[in-house]
């Protein structure tokens, strides 16, 4: 039903109260009742005189549709054709992980005289990555002297995308299989670079500045210093969204919070170094693949895809597990290792001879069995199953590390680099 102007209870009180008292005063001839009624009578008369003639139109608009975690914007509620409005109030529907100012999400404003448009801005901060509807609620308006009220009318919501704020991450270890053209990782083949490879006899095409004079004088033949070429590498992030455990309002967040923020951090780090990064989300039907790419726009695309993740939205979609990996790709699996899907994917990749690293994202403070002994027992059993899965993965030669921010991947990347130069068995 379309909202219209209706008399307020205040106007009815002033009108009925004053008229009743005035009627009695006239009927019984008592002057004192006229004195009692006079202010209410004046109030009612002036309110009726300011009876609104036009119907306002209300709408809400989100000032920014995309933010990062912790950033703020505002919902602007606008009342048009509001010449008869003296005060407008907007109340937005509270949502989880959104902080309004004021915290109730209710704000009002008094309009200047005969303003055509009234705006009520409600600042808000988004506290967690993801996509959620914002801006729905109610708006109401009051005429001068509080005689008539319009609404409350409904407001439509808009979609707010909150990009994950990547955690802090840094690594000094090179990736084990750089296979690209230009980059910063020392490759296995020799070429232009800075990392020392060997001293070998001079060959046509070698540059003079590469001549190693001391060895050349000692051996009597020209020798040159060769270096490893520097190339970029492919990193595939696999984010497990099948299970999400933990308190989203806790200090570390849920396992999916850790996974998403870690994936953002790792992607940001490698993309800044010029490497190519891709993304695969396990357990999601839509927006679950970002192909390999480089550059800041690609980072934005990855963060957008991470913001789309909804935990446990689909457990069956990844049955075929086609990753489409190229040679030399390093796969970083970010998972709490509580689902068969993630362990199966990890073992399958390891079987194919791909360098896989599992980053365990289960927060330390997760405890689901505080109150109920049956829950406690179930959680213990779940953890035992998880330990078995982790052992199985480690037995297949996949290193498992806990996410701890900067330096998480240093040691395992160095080990993978050493292992890359050794002969190995892989299933084709």
């Amino acid at each position, binding site marked *: 039903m379309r909202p219209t102007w209706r008399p307020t209870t205040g106007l009815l009180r002033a009108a009925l109260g004053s008229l009743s008292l005035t009627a009695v005063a006239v009927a019984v001839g008592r002057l004192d009742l006229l004195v009692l009624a006079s202010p209410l009578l004046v109030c009612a*008369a002036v309110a009726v005189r300011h009876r609104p003639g036009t119907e306002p139109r209300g709408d809400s608009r989100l000032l920014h549709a995309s933010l990062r975690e912790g950033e703020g914007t505002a919902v602007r509620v606008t009342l048009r054709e509001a010449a008869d409005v*003296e005060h407008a109030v907007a109340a937005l529907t509270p949502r989880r992980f959104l902080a309004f100012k004021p915290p109730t999400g209710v704000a009002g404003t008094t309009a200047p005289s005969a303003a055509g448009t009234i705006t009520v801005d409600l600042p808000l901060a988004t506290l967690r990555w993801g996509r959620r509807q914002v801006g729905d609620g109610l708006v109401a308006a009051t005429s001068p*002297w509080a005689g008539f009220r319009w609404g409350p009318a409904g407001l439509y919501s808009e979609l707010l995308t909150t990009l994950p704020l990547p955690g802090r991450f840094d690594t000094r270890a090179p990736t084990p299989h750089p296979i690209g053209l230009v980059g910063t990782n020392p490759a296995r083949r020799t070429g232009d670079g800075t990392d020392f490879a060997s001293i070998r006899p001079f060959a046509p095409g070698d540059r003079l500045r590469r001549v190693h004079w001391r060895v050349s004088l000692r051996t009597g033949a020209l020798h040159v210093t060769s270096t490893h070429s520097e190339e970029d590498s492919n990193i595939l992030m696999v984010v497990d969204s099948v299970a999400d455990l933990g308190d989203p309002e806790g200090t570390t967040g849920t396992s999916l919070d850790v996974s998403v923020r870690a994936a953002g951090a790792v992607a940001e780090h490698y993309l800044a170094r010029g490497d190519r990064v891709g993304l695969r989300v396990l357990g999601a039907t839509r927006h679950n693949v970002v192909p390999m790419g480089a550059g800041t726009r690609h980072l934005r695309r990855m963060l957008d895809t991470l913001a789309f993740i909804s935990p446990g939205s689909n457990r069956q979609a990844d049955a075929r597990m086609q990753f489409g990996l190229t040679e030399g790709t390093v796969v970083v699996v970010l998972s709490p290792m509580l689902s068969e899907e993630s362990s199966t994917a990890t073992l399958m990749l390891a079987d194919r001879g791909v360098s896989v690293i599992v980053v365990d994202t289960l927060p330390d403070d997760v405890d689901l069995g505080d109150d109920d002994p049956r829950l406690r027992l179930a959680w213990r059993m779940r953890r035992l199953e998880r330990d078995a899965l982790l052992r199985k993965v480690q037995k297949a030669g996949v290193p498992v590390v806990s996410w701890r921010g900067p330096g998480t991947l240093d040691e395992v990347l160095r080990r993978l680099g050493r292992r890359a130069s050794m002969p190995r068995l892989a299933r084709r």
Partner: protein
Amino acid sequence: MSRLSAARSFLDGLTGLTGQQALLRVLVAALPGLAFGVEVQAGAPVQTVPVALVLVLTVISALVPDSHGPLAVVLVLGGYWVISVEESLSWQLLVLTGLLLAFHVVCLLACYGPASVVLDRVLIGLWLRRTALLGAVAVLVWLAARLAGGLDLPASPWLFAAGLLVVVGATGTLSRRLAVGAG
């Protein structure tokens, strides 16, 4: 909306009261009691039924100011004045008028939005000026009534009703000009 969910949202509204709204509700609860005290001072007897009636209606008004509870409070207090106090243009009448006016304005302010709304200073200042204006009207009518009483004119309620209409018209014009000036 079911009764249960309505009751739940009502209680949620009460728990979400802002400091300003809580103060307004306290005033809504206190002013009828003061007005009743002024009536007693003017000679009205303290009887159980009117006291209980005012108490119940006051509680209803404080809990749900956007209802007809405050109207009932005004009618009960006005009616009790008519029944139990002889016609009097004493200072108690003026104080009672001021208290009823303040009660009306406080109820209006408490109804501007949900219980969690915080009214801005502009609106509160506007209503303070309006209350002063309405109070001035009451004082003028009171003075006019005392003057008429002093002149010992023959009783003619129509004459006073006409005079009241003149005051209403003058106040309306004045308030319009004040609003234009503020804009």
